[in-house]
């Protein structure tokens, strides 16, 4: 076989790999949505779950998913952005900075079940919160943290240094320059990062089983953060492996489709706000 023939075969194989990857994803989507969409109805999305009989919905779970996500961002955004700003603007080459960088890296590699156990230990037991929406949100915040630190730092570093100089030369304090120039200019990157984290957090389950719990409040919607708060992804796992309801399979398929749609929406949304902002900032150029 000549090297030219090998080249041709290799090219064909690589094309095949590319197509296979896309086909695999396509098959996944069709399978999940095909099985799940027929299960979706307004009633399914908004009504409360059943313990033993069929026909339960996932309303509270869907609500809890977003509520916990919202609370976790509320906790992790200020700290994550603060640490990101520190790394981008203030950090000197010293031991403290190295420590922070290693910590961010280490934190992003922690398996989510370990976060879950930590949250169970600290929030559910030591703080005595039991299984609660707040405990779940606090633990989930730890998962978001490293991503937020990273995107904030990257976003701010990508802002031209000339903006920073210009602001300081006009007599601004560093904080004024950060607040009025750096962060607004870095916002598209930061928002993309937040959307990415949110998608991931919505699908997260191992963290929440032993922090937010496996059942829902009797009220719906229940904004009390100290109430137990199972989320949609946890519910999907729960009905599939532990639940007694006869329509567990349908509920799981419906929940999976719902989750996937949410993730798809977040993935599609990623580009939009940053593109609009970019346009506003650059005057449509």
């Amino acid at each position, binding site marked *: 076989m000549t090297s030219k023939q090998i080249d041709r075969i290799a090219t064909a194989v690589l094309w095949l790999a590319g197509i296979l990857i896309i086909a695999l994803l396509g098959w996944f989507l069709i399978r999940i949505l095909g099985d799940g969409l027929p299960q979706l109805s307004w009633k399914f999305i908004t009504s409360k779950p059943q313990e033993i009989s069929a026909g339960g919905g996932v309303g509270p779970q869907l609500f809890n998913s977003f509520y916990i996500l919202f609370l976790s961002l509320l906790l992790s955004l200020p700290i994550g952005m603060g640490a990101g700003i520190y790394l981008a603007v203030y950090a000197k*080459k010293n031991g403290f900075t190295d420590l922070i960088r290693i910590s961010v890296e280490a934190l992003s590699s922690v398996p989510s079940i370990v976060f879950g156990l930590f949250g169970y230990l600290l929030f559910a037991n030591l703080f005595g919160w039991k299984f609660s929406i707040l405990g779940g949100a606090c633990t989930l915040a730890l998962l978001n943290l490293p991503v937020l630190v990273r995107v904030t730092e990257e976003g701010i570093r990508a802002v031209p240094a000339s903006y920073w*100089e210009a602001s300081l030369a*006009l*007599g601004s304090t560093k904080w004024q320059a950060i607040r*009025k120039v750096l962060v607004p200019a870095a916002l598209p990157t930061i928002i993309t990062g937040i959307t990415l984290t949110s998608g991931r957090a919505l699908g997260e389950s191992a963290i929440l089983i032993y922090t937010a719990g496996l059942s829902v409040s009797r009220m719906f919607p229940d904004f009390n953060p100290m109430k137990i708060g199972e989320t949609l992804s946890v519910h999907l796992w729960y009905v599939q492996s532990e639940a007694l309801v006869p329509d567990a399979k349908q509920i799981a398929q419906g929940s999976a489709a719902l989750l996937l749609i949410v993730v798809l929406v977040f993935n599609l949304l990623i580009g939009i706000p940053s593109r609009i902002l970019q346009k506003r900032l650059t*005057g449509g150029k």
Partner: protein
Amino acid sequence: MTERHKINVSKLNLFYGDNHALHDIEMTIESNTIAALIGPSGCGKSTFLRTLNRMNDLIDGVRITGSVAVDGQNVYGPETDIVSLRKRVGMVFQRPNPFPMSIYDNIAYGPRIHGTKKKAVLDEIVERSLRQAALWDEVKDRLNKSALGLSGGQQQRLCIARLLAVEPDVLLMDEPTSALDPISTLKVEELTQTLKERYTIIIVTHNMQQAARISDVTSFFLNGYLVETDKTDKIFTNPNDQRTEDYITGRFG
């Protein structure tokens, strides 16, 4: 006596780590003059300019000895508030660097960070600054459009207007026309002549014709030393130092 000079630099030395970048600089600059700093690249003229409003403070490992006084006040004194200093001694950079905001917000940025909030006052400052920078007529209909949509020359005049809005009295210009086309350069040069009536201007330039055209006094820097300072026409016709003459006649650099 020192009180009489707008800016008085004495025994100024600057080190980047082990690199001794400026040696014993002595210089005085009077009010309402344009002082040009010339010299080959790497001679320290830009570094010197940045010592005047302490922009070198942003770089790690910079050490400065000696004194720089503006209106008799030591810029490097312990009691000096760096923010107040930069408000008084403003800077225009080599490349135009408008913020990614509207033209209006760019000009209003300075006044806003210094505590002006009233819309009417800001409107007035924006118009006055743009007029001073000879930009008003070109942009008055698009104040809310992004400043990044302006041409390079307009952007640089916008940056000058942005600086004027904080009412400094010394303007530092670091090769302000090096990124501009000849027509925009001419406009900025004309602008410096009108600004001179109200401000003291120190301009770094690599363009000797420019220094000759616009400045009253010229200082020649070489390898971190200030070789000589004199009236501009003297420097360009009959300099005291042989090295200055060599540079001006194009024998090096």
